Structure formats: C-alpha cells, structure tokens
C-alpha cells in the first residue's frame, strides 16, 4: 500500500482512539462528581443523624438540638406552594393542550413558561419581596409559600401540556361522539388518561422546590423557634442549612450537613418515584 495512505489511516485511527478515550474519560469525570458529592454527604450527614434531629428545635450555638422547626416549616410551605401552584399550572396546561392547541396565545404562553422554568429563582424571591413583603411590611411564611408556588407553576404547566398532548385524539373523538361536552371530556377522559404523567409533574415540582433556598432568604426569612404562624417569619430547611453552614460553630455545621443529607435523600427519592411512575412512557 502507498505509505502516505497508510500514514493517513494510522493518523485517523490514532485520532479516533484519542477522542474515544476522551469520551470515556468525560463520562467517568461526570459520574465521579455524583459519587464524590453523595459520598461526602453520606459520610458527613449520617454521623449526625439521630432521632433528636427530628424531634428537637434548632439549638443556640454550643448546645445540642435538632431540625424540627425548619423541617416542619419546609413541609408547610411546600404543601401550600403545591396547593396554589398545581391547580393554576394544570388549568393553564389544559388550555394549551385542549382548547387553544393551535392558538397564538398558546405559543406565546409556552415560550414565556419555558423562560420562567429556568428563570433565576433569586429573581422570583425579589419579585415576591416587592409584591408581598414590602407591602405587608414584614417577612412571612405566606410570602415564602407564594415564591415557591411561582416556581411550581411552570413545571406543572409544562408536564400537563406534554402529557395531555400525548393522549390519543381517538379518545377525545370517542367522548365527543357520545355527546360529552368538552369540559367533561377533558376532566373525565383526558385527565384520567394523562394522570400518571401529571402526578409525575407535581412530584418533580416538589423535588424542585424542596431544595430551593434563594427565594426563601428574603420572603420567609428564618425563625429560630417553633412557629407555624404563616404571618410571621418561618424557618425552612434550606435557609437553616445556609445559615448554619456559614457559621463558625462546629455543631451548627454538623447540623447543616445532616439537613443537607435529609433534603438530598428526599429530592432523590421524589425524582426516582417520578421516574418509575413515568417509566412506561417517554417523558420530557
């Protein structure tokens, strides 16, 4: 064979080997971070995990305590946020997939919704601060819940629209052919067919907001004591982690790690459940 050609072959093969090695390396690199982060989290968090974490209040520096009030605060605010955000998001998604599938409005809403989906959450915190905290004159749990709800809405809109679009039109036609009005067709037929996917969307939204810190910093603020009064500052797990981790006290930092472990496990569990629910169909 012509030596210049075999040189070319060798070069091409060499380049292929190098880039394929890079591809393996890149994947190893990506997976390493997952292992390292989860490993450190388990290592640091498990040692502090005890029953007291779930039964005692956040302590002053230097004494023992738990994370009961931030856990309760997070649960309450997350629940309210989902209760506000889910119906709104589902209705909007319903309009986009059912009534206005070919509307101009739908295209615009979809575009704006996609931007809200990845908008910086700290900006949403500023927004809620302006419309609620500044108006009411004090930080409050309601403001925290509303800012989380603003994050829930685009997630639910997106999944609702996607899931309803996947419902076969023959089901709709069958419903229409027996004389069902559209509203009943949607609520009794389309929602049922898309139920698993829509639940997945809500779970993903919960996973998303349970770790959100930035929008809570200046809406719900923080509260060292047991308080579920939503008209006053409410403690939340992410904000407590933020505060405790940056503190100079060793026992606070320990609690921050434990809180971080609890949040991560909750979020990972939620996303795995969501994945299992959505498994039969390809989503997103």
């Amino acid at each position, binding site marked *: 064979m012509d030596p210049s050609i075999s040189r070319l072959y060798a070069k091409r093969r060499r380049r292929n080997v190098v880039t394929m090695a890079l591809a393996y390396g890149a994947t190893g690199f990506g997976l390493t971070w997952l292992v390292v982060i989860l490993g*450190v989290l388990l290592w640091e968090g498990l040692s502090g995990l005890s029953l007291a974490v779930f039964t005692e209040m956040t302590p002053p520096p230097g004494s023992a305590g738990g994370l009961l009030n931030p856990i309760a605060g997070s649960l309450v605010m997350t629940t309210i946020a989902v209760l506000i955000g889910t119906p709104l998001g589902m209705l909007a998604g319903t309009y986009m997939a059912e009534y206005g599938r070919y509307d101009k409005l739908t295209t615009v809403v979809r575009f704006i919704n996609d931007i809200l989906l990845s908008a910086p959450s700290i900006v949403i915190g500023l927004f809620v601060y302006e419309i609620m905290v500044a108006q009411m004159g004090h930080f409050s749990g309601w403001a925290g819940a509303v800012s989380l709800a603003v994050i829930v809405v685009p997630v639910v809109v997106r999944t609702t629209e996607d899931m309803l679009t996947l419902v076969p039109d023959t089901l709709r036609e069958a419903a229409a052919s027996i004389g069902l009005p559209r509203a009943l067709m949607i609520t009794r037929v389309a929602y049922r067919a898309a139920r698993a996917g829509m639940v997945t969307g809500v779970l993903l939204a919960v996973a998303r907001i349970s770790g959100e810190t930035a929008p809570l910093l200046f809406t719900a603020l923080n509260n060292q004591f047991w308080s579920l009064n939503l008209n006053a500052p409410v403690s939340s797990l992410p904000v407590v982690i933020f505060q405790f981790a940056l503190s100079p006290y060793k026992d606070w930092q320990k609690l921050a790690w434990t809180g971080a472990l609890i949040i*991560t496990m909750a979020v990972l569990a939620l996303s795995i459940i969501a994945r299992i629910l959505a498994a039969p169909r390809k989503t997103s």
Partner: protein
Amino acid sequence: MLSTGRRSVVDVALQGAGISAVDHVDRAKVLQRLRLGDVAFRHLTRSAALAVLIILGGIIVSLVWGSLPALRTFGVSFLYEEVWNPVTEKFGAIAPIYGTIVTSFIAMLIAVPVGLFIAMFLTELCPMWLRRPIGIAIELLAGIPSIIYGIWGLFVFAPFLQQYVQPFLITLFGEIPIFSTLFAGPPYGIGIFTAGLILAIMVLPFITSISRDVFEAVPPVLKEAAYGLGCTTWEVARYIVLPYTRVGVIGGVMLGLGRALGETMAVTFVIGNAHRISGSLLAPGTTISATIANEFTEAVGDLYTSALIALGLILFVITFIVLAIARLLLMRLNAQVGR
C-alpha cells in the same frame, strides 16, 4: 339497544357523566347547564394561561419599579462603576456583572466539551444495557439542590483546590505572560475560579441530557452511510452528528448558560463576596445573585435595597435574553423534526 325509545345517545352520555334522573328534568335545561359549564371551564383555563403571562409581567414591572430609585440616582453609571459602598450609599454594578459573566464563562468552557463527549459516549459507545443507568445517574446530578453543591464546595472542594490544585496552577503558569496574571496567588480556595468549577459541575447534566436527546434524533441512515464509507466513530460524530444537531446543541448550551448565570446558592458559598474586579481568577469576587443573597436582608436604607433590586433586574434581563435565544433555537429544531 334500539328499544330505548325516546332516550337518545345524549341521555346515555349524560348518565355516563354522572347526571342521573335525566328523564325527570328538562333536557334543554341540563344541556344548557353543561354548555355553561363548558364555557366557564374554557374561560377558567384561559385565564390560568394568561396568569402565566401576568407572572412574567409582574416580575418585570416589580423589578423595574423597585430599581427606579437606584437607577434615578446613579443613572447609566450604575452599569460601569466598580464602587459598592453601603456606608456612603455609592453603588456600581460592574464587579458583580463581571463575576457573573466570568464564572459562567469558566463553567461553559469546561461543561460544554465534557457534556458533548458524554453525550457522544451515551449515543455511540455505551453498551445498550448501561445507557439508561448512566443517563439516570447524570440526570440525578441535575436533581441535587444547589445548596448541596454550595455546602460541599465550601467544606470539601474549596479546601481541596486550595491545597492541591491552585498552588500547582500558580507555579505552572508563573512564567507565562497573561496566564501568570490570571492565576496569580495566593491560593484562597474560595473565589471566581472555584465558583466557575462548581457551576461547571452543575450545568454539565443539562448540557449532557439535551445533547444526548438531539444526538439520538439523528437518522440512523445518515450514520450508517458514513460508517459504510469507512468513517471512524469520531469522524461520524464530528462530521455527521454534530453538524446535523448544531441548532439543538447550541440551544442546550444556551439553556445551561442561563442556569449558570442565575445560579445563586452554590456560588454564594464559594465566591468570597468581594466587590472588586481582580486580574486573578483565584481571587475572591462576587456575582449578581451572590450579592443579592448575601446582602439583601441586611440592606438598610431604600437606596441600598433599590440597588440590589436593580442588580436583580440586570440579571433577569441577561438571563431572559439568553434563555429566549435558547428556546427559539430549540423551537426551530422541533419545527424541523415535525416536518
């Protein structure tokens, strides 16, 4: 079934819909009620869709409104002044803007090639049975809340960089012009460089999963034809897959960039919160989101608060543009696939 007499299909449907005793009430009334219900539901869903637009409008209006005092006081100079002094109430945004852009740039510099290589691995090299687990693992990285990256970065990653990586970089680039400034010591651990690296880890999953999705959409015929000509895997990826998926990949990269620009908690932990522009990447700095997170609750005085909201407005405008470009590109791609 025909013997149902007067009962028409509508009655059956109405019964199916849970409205019993149809025969005893006026059919016209029931139908009217259903029609009204339908109209009401239609308007309800429509207003919910409009509410999404109102939320965005509300964000813009409230940010502009809140930042008016600062913008009125400082004018355009807010955008390029470096001073940030709450005591004398002089504020300029260039240091946080610089930090935001540089950290995101470092993040993209690392995450884009790595993400593309992972996507290539997942679509071309990985054995079938491993694809799903690895794909899920990478996506789990995306699900980890940003505060976790922050606490990990502060206690584990930054000390590691300070001890091992940064001294190495400082001596490595010590003699080379430009680079010696970029990597001038001392190694603080926290700073622009560390924040950029953490952002890279955070946006990696976004870029990877979108690239993988668009890579998978390449018609197998194209790849098979190239393989048939004797192309290597790399050549197929470089000359067939990448050109075919260019628009989608750029869209995914912009989406990752949008995340990196707006990311708050992970950066706040490791950036050092110093309002100055330093020639060295290893020096502490700040970003828009970190400044807001660190200072907002402690801001006293309307002008200070307003300056922070103005920072938020700048951040929102930047990310809005980036995300809008990303979405337009991805929409164009979907239109192509649909055809």
